[in-house]
Every structure is written in structure tokens, then in C-alpha cells.
């Protein structure tokens, strides 16, 4: 058989095309990968792994729940106890919407070594629901009329406190003084004074004290800490973090139960240290809207954002705080603002510098909140070398004027609009630098936090850590030090809003710098419009 040139061209013509395409594809990918690994090597970030805690072995820990409202129920589910009503409701919802995995996730949740022995709630309906749902033939959940009765009963080793804010500290202190372990919801305290008393109680107690900032368990935050410590962002001069809500639930207008009346609610006990007013369902169910029982955006939601950043940066109590805002969208009788902007100054704080030493120092933490718009504004850490968007996933973009990455930016190995690092606990690859496309998929909420292939919630992890610390005499990630910083920062924000002026912290004396003629706790608890105080030179 003879092959002419024409034959070869017609028969083998595809070969050079195949070779060229193969070479182009391979070369391109290898080049891009080399660029990526060069960046990764330079960044040297260790993605965080799921937390490991020692086993909660031995006899079950006897836990009592104080406050079995919305949050109390959620905390009990994290402990492994769901009410029958909730189970039925979630079952029905899963039938309508197969995407609703709440029940499935609850049933798959690891069992904690806990015996729920008692409940304390001033509303009969809540207490009875807990008893009905959690009592078993071997373990009848007991109702205690007061928290003192529960703490002194000798039946309870640990308490979970999910009451209105003004009860957090008194109950925590009583429990700690009796060496009963405490898991208390945020904010840790309702007044400045209580913050010191609670710190003393926690330090002197043998019991383990934990504050319910469950996001400290979120893997992306732990990775973010590593990123900041490695100097990836350079010096962070500004943090922007937000609360954006626009619905009744978000504005604390919770449902009012039909069976609520003076016979089913121990009104006197609910009021506690709050001003004595006649029975009022609105105040009882929607207590977050009044300074007498709650602390609105500063205590309820700013604390979340402050602690989220404090667990990454460990920046501590701000040097000074100024706040502004008002009641602009929910004129429904509340006295806490529904729009709040808080600027916390940290003039001495530094996350390190890629420039001349000492050139970069100081940071402003800017919290911006509205209950009148739910547009999603992300949490952003703005550094000289890079910007980090921090949420369940985490993305880092280089800054176009970065000193650290100047060469790579010049060589176009880095581009300001392409992330240099992305961490997504749910993705297959733990430390992939990704394109804008996969960022898009992550933002869509398609990825979840998985541990060993199962979706888990951070409150469960936070409670597990507390229970493990009780059994093994370990540490908790949000204890009294972190809680103290959170509470003081929140109170400074509340005071600043109420007084219309800057509030400063004296780090040496560990006190909020006094203002002549002003009793901080009186101001914090007062209702009504903020009072604008004149500033004197000695106070600056």
C-alpha cells in the first residue's frame, strides 16, 4: 500500500490539532496551578479542622434549664432534647419541603452525656411543655418555681440560662457561688456593675462558666485567626460589620401566647430588678425592646459581631466608643434604638505591618445596624495588604496597593478582583484558591459545614465544649475573660448612645472612665430619649 502526501494529510491531519490542543490545555493548567501554589506557599495558611474535645464520659451531667422560651428551646435541642411539638412541626415541614433538614439534622446529632433534670420558667406553659416533652419513666423533669430552688436543690450540676438579659448575671452569680456550672446566653450582664460581680464570682468558683457565643466554633473563624496571625491581610485599620433585618421576628416582635395571663405568668419574678409595672404581655414576650430587661441592638446583636471579631483578632475592650442612631422604623413603644451605628476605637491595636515598623497602628471597628432593611452587607476586614470577607465561608482579595504582594501584583500573578484564598468548610478541597465562579456557588449557600460528612450546628459544638470542660476540667472558648470584654464593650456602646457622647475605657484601672455626675448603670437602665451631655476637657 502506498501513501501519498494527500493521504497522510487527510488521514492524519487531526493529529497535530489534537497535539496542539492537548499541549495548550496541559500547559495552561500547569502554569495556573504553579501560580496558585506559589501564592499558597507564600500565604502558608492552615485551614482549621473540626474541633476535637475530650469525651464526656462517666455519669450523665445533670442539667437544669432556666428560661424555656425561644432560645431555651433551641439550646435544649443542641443538648439533644427537642419538644414533641417541634418534632411534629419539623416533620410536617419536611414533607412540604424536602430541603428542610432540621429534624434529620437533629436526629443525626451526636448524643451528649446529659440528663435534663429540671426546668425553671415563670410562664407555666413553657415549663409544662418542657416537662411533658423531656420526662421519661426513669427521669421525670422537675419544675422549680425559682432559680434559687433549682440551684440549691442538690439535684442539678449545671444550668443553662436563657432568660431575659436582666436575669443573666444574678442567676449566673448564684449558680457559680454554689459551684454549679453555667452556660449563659449573651450579653453576659445587663449593667456595668454586674459585669465585675460576675467576673469575681466566676474566678472564685470551681464551676465552669461559658457564654453562649456559639460562633466561636465556626471553622471559618478559626481559619480567619490563622490568616490574620500570618500577616496575610497586613495591618487591619478598619472592620465593617453589620446587622440587617427587616421583619417582625428580627425586630423582636415575637408572638404573644394566647394562654398568657397573670395566672400563668409569675410577673413579679419576671420583673426582678426592673421597674415595677402592671402585668404586660407585650413586655413579657418582647422584652428585648426595653432597656429595663434587654439592651436592644448593642447588647443583643452587636455582642455577636464584636465577639466574632474578638475571637479572630483578640482585640479586647475598645479604647473608646461612640454610637448614634434612633428609633426610626419601629415606633411601637420600644425604648431601644432600631438603627444603631457604633464606632469602637483601638488606637494601640495592630495586626502587624508589611511596611516600616510602627507605621501602621490602630483600628476602628465599625458596627452598623438597622431593623428596617435586610440587604446583606458582609463583614469585611480591611488590611493594607488584603481584604477579608468573613462569614461561613471566607474569602481574601489582595489589595491593589499592597506592599507585601507588590511583586506578584506587578507580575499579574495576583489580581485585585480575584481571591487569593478561599476557605469553605463544605467544599471538597479545604484550601483551594478559587475563581469567582466557586465564590458564587459558596455565596449561594450551597455549601454547608460538615463534620465527618454530617451537617452540625455551632450551638451543639459550643455546648459540647462546655460539657466536656465540666467532665475533664478543660477550658471553654468563651469564658469569663471573653464574656467580660464582650459585656463592657456592649455597655460602652449603650452608654454612648444614651449619653450622646464618646465613652472611654481606662485599661490600667479596668474601669469605664467616669463622667462627673453620671451614674452609668442608672443611665443604662433608664428609658426614654438619650440625653446629650456637654463634654468637658478633663473628660477627654
Amino acid at each position, binding site marked *: *500500500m*502506498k501513501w501519498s502526501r494527500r*493521504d497522510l494529510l*487527510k*488521514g*492524519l*491531519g*487531526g*493529529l497535530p*490539532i*489534537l497535539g496542539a*490542543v*492537548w499541549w*495548550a*490545555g*496541559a500547559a*495552561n*493548567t*500547569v502554569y*495556573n*496551578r504553579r501560580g496558585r501554589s506559589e501564592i499558597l506557599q507564600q500565604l502558608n495558611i492552615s485551614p482549621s479542622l473540626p474541633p476535637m474535645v475530650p469525651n464526656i464520659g462517666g455519669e450523665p451531667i445533670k442539667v437544669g434549664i432556666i428560661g424555656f422560651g425561644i432560645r431555651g428551646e433551641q439550646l435544649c435541642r443542641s443538648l439533644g432534647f427537642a419538644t414533641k411539638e417541634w418534632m411534629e412541626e419539623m416533620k410536617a415541614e419536611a414533607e412540604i419541603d424536602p430541603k428542610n433538614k432540621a429534624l434529620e439534622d437533629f436526629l443525626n446529632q451526636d448524643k451528649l452525656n446529659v440528663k435534663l433534670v429540671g426546668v425553671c420558667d415563670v410562664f407555666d406553659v413553657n415549663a409544662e411543655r418542657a416537662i411533658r416533652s423531656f420526662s421519661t419513666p426513669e427521669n421525670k423533669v422537675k419544675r422549680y418555681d425559682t432559680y434559687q430552688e433549682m440551684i440549691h436543690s442538690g439535684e442539678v450540676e449545671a444550668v443553662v440560662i436563657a432568660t431575659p438579659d436582666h436575669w443573666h448575671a444574678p442567676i449566673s452569680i448564684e449558680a457559680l457561688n454554689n459551684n454549679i456550672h453555667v452556660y449563659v446566653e449573651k450579653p453576659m450582664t445587663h449593667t456595668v456593675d454586674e459585669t465585675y460581680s460576675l467576673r469575681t464570682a466566676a474566678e472564685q468558683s470551681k464551676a465552669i462558666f461559658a457564654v453562649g457565643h456559639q460562633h466561636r466554633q465556626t471553622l471559618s473563624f478559626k481559619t480567619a485567626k490563622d490568616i490574620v496571625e500570618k500577616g496575610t491581610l497586613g495591618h487591619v485599620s478598619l472592620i465593617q460589620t453589620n446587622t440587617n433585618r427587616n421583619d417582625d421576628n428580627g425586630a423582636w416582635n415575637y408572638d404573644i401566647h394566647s394562654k398568657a395571663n397573670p395566672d400563668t405568668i409569675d410577673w413579679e419574678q419576671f420583673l426582678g430588678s426592673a421597674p415595677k409595672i402592671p402585668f404586660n404581655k407585650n413586655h413579657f414576650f418582647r422584652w428585648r425592646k426595653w432597656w429595663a430587661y434587654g439592651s436592644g441592638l448593642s447588647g443583643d446583636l452587636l455582642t455577636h459581631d464584636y465577639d466574632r471579631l474578638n475571637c479572630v483578632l483578640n482585640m479586647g475592650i475598645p479604647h473608646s466608643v461612640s454610637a448614634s442612631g434612633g428609633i426610626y422604623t419601629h415606633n411601637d413603644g420600644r425604648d431601644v434604638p432600631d438603627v444603631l451605628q457604633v464606632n469602637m476605637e483601638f488606637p494601640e491595636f495592630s495586626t502587624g505591618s508589611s511596611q516600616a515598623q510602627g507605621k501602621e497602628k490602630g483600628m476602628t471597628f465599625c458596627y452598623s445596624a438597622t431593623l428596617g432593611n435586610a440587604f446583606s452587607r458582609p463583614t469585611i476586614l480591611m488590611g493594607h495588604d488584603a481584604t477579608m470577607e468573613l462569614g461561613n465561608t471566607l474569602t481574601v482579595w489582595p489589595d491593589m496597593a499592597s506592599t507585601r504582594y507588590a511583586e506578584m501584583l506587578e507580575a499579574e500573578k495576583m489580581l485585585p478582583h480575584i481571591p487569593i484564598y478561599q476557605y469553605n468548610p463544605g*467544599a*471538597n*478541597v479545604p484550601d*483551594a484558591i478559587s475563581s469567582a*465562579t*466557586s465564590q*458564587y*456557588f459558596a455565596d*449561594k449557600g*450551597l*455549601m454547608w459545614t460538615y463534620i465527618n*460528612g454530617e451537617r452540625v450546628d455551632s450551638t451543639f459544638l459550643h455546648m459540647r465544649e462546655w460539657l466536656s470542660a465540666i467532665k475533664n476540667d478543660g477550658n471553654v472558648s468563651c469564658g469569663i475573660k471573653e464574656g467580660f470584654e464582650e459585656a463592657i464593650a456592649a455597655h460602652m456602646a449603650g452608654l454612648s448612645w444614651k449619653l450622646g457622647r464618646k465613652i472611654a475605657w481606662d485599661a490600667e484601672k479596668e474601669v469605664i472612665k467616669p463622667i462627673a455626675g453620671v451614674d452609668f448603670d442608672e443611665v443604662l437602665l433608664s428609658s426614654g430619649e438619650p440625653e446629650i451631655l456637654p463634654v468637658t476637657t478633663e473628660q477627654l
Partner: protein
Amino acid sequence: MVDSIKDRNVNISIVLLRVFIGWHFLYEGVIKLFNPEWTSFGYLASAQGPLKPFFSLLISPSVIGWVDVLNMAALIIVGVAFTLGVFEKKGAIVAIGLLALYYLAHPPFPWLDQLNTEGNYWFVNKNLIELIACILIYNFPTGHYFGLNYFIKRKPIKT
């Protein structure tokens, strides 16, 4: 009567179509082959439309590895078959299957959100058009005109 010039033009056109589709498949396959971090997870996880439950099954941890390998292998097989002009009918079947899956994972139906697309589509998108082109290649194989099939076809002819 056969118009040989027209016949030649048709052949050349289909050869070009075949080679370019092959090029496209091959390049996609090679990119994935040389990038160990690539996964179809994101594409499948965000699937929409009537076959969404099927695509959701594919992302389970035990399956996704196989899905990724098969997808990559299929892309390369089609790419090689089309550029070289060999086994093109079989290649076309594989290509039609792959493109149908891509189309059905993110169908451009007006009632569905269009995720991450660079154009505007209403029922018909580029995947579907490429699929139809592959049907044409299946029905009009051109490997004997330009490609390895040229030799296979020549074999029985004694000179």
C-alpha cells in the same frame, strides 16, 4: 445526480464542525485532567429543573469522585474521536449524552433562575445547539474524508 463540488463543501463544513467540537471537548477534558483540584461539585450542587434530585445524588461523597473521573474521561474520549476522525459515531453518542446532562442540570427554562450564565437563553442554549451539532456528526460521519477513518476505509481497496 451528485454535485461533487457541493458534496465537497458539505464534507469540509462538517469536518470543521467536528474538529472544532472535538477541540472544545478535548480542551475541557485536558484542563480537568491536569487540575487535581477540579470537581463538578459546584455545578451539580446547584442543579435545577426536573432532574435536580438525580444530580443531587451524584454529589454524595462516595459518588462524586467517580462522576468527576467519568466526566473527564468522556470529554477526552469525545475530543480525541472527533479531532482524529475515528469512532466518531460512538463519540457522538457519548457527546450527546454528556451535553444532555449538562443541559438538564441547568436548563434555561424561563421559570428557573439562571445561575452563572454569560448569555441570555430561553429554552435553547449553547449546550443544546452543540448537542444538535453532534446529532449531525452522528448522521454524517466525515472521518473517511478527513481523519483516521480515511485509512480504515481505504484498507479493503486493493491497489
